[in-house]
């Protein structure tokens, strides 16, 4: 399963995902520049990403908890997500996303 990430400096990297992980875990373990301070329990808003347009609809929508945490993020867009709340699955093979600033 491939995940295409655009870094903060605009560089694109392709990561290998697996269906037992969250998107945040894959990005963090690759050493990309997200803080993921709370470790993935939806308590910090430091794993903020923008999901590519055609992929956004394929992911189950944000729940209340994620919405509330996004209130603490900056530059929130319609396609904003906290990557710790996205469980990877085979349908998301090829997923494109961009790391949000800061």
């Amino acid at each position, binding site marked *: 399963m491939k995940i295409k990430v655009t870094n903060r400096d605009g560089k694109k990297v392709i990561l290998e995902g697996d269906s037992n992980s969250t998107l945040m875990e894959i990005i963090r373990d690759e050493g990309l520049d997200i803080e993921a*301070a*709370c470790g993935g329990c939806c308590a910090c808003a430091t794993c903020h990403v923008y999901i590519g347009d055609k992929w956004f609809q394929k992911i189950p929508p944000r729940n209340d908890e994620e919405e509330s945490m996004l*209130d*603490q*993020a*900056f530059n929130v867009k*319609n396609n904003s997500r906290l990557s710790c709340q996205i469980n990877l699955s085979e349908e998301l093979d090829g997923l494109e996303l961009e790391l949000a*600033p800061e």
Partner: protein
Amino acid sequence: MIEKTDVIIIGAGPVGLFSIFELGLLNISCHVIDNLDRPGGQCAELYPEKPIYDIPSRITITGQELTDDLLAQVKPFKPVFHLGQQVDKITKLDSNDWIVETSMNKSIQARCIVIAAGAGSFVPRKIPLKNIGYLEEKNIIYAVRNKSLLEGKELLIVGGGDSALDWTIELSKIAKVTLMHRRKEFKAAPDSVCKMLELENEKKINFLIGQIDNIEDLNNGKIKVITKNDEKNIELEVDFLLPFFGLKMEIGPIANWGLKLDKNLIKVDTEKFETSEPSIFAIGDINTYPGKLKLILSGFHEAALMAQGCFKYCFPDKKNIFRYTTSSKDLQKKLTSI
């Protein structure tokens, strides 16, 4: 007045709390300092209600339960807590003791320092715009300390949580308040939301949906905040901007103490978990060594070995006889002294 103890623990998270226990078994007294106003660190602040499944023998335990149980476990050792303050400065004396100074002007002297500060101190999350640092306290206020400063002024409060709404309600009595939030739903307590909507209806405050896009200094004591939402950009000229975006963790002053760091984590040995500076130890999420795992249980292990290391500094002439709590009458007496 300088207070004295054997060891100062920086950080009252689970690993800092368990250090009190491990040090206490070795007759080492300690004081604990934390920036939050209650013990528990991330466990109590970020996920008090969420289950943790990898604390040995606890099938499931919440962050708050773990904190409460650790506090009960360390009670016999009578730790002294200094909460709501951060360590600003450390100084080594000729005697090799340390003096630790906190943001509340407290000075404490000890033989050793144990840094168990997790991901750092919780501080207000700041607006990530470049070149606005100098406006802090002047036009941008992250924590209201002096309300009278805001009297009669035009304020823009941003956020949707309790802080943002509580301050909107409170400051609407003395100032001209606009509240901005990125959506019409609020995380704040329902009572506060009702009260705020009432104030909006009565035109006692303005409410705006949007986010901060940019900030300009108007050089007349005011700032221009450019806000954006899906439809349009609105520019507001205000005296003060009060952003409430929750808390984040920052390593803070610790990074300037001359300890060897690796990517903002403190390098330690794996025998005593001592830093590059003798008699300063670092345990839990804030340290790094080959094979490090950021787990609470690793932090507990590190605390036990750190305590052995501290013993040598606290009692250089004494022999440390290894004892089990199960079999040592002396340890049992200590543990049941309460």
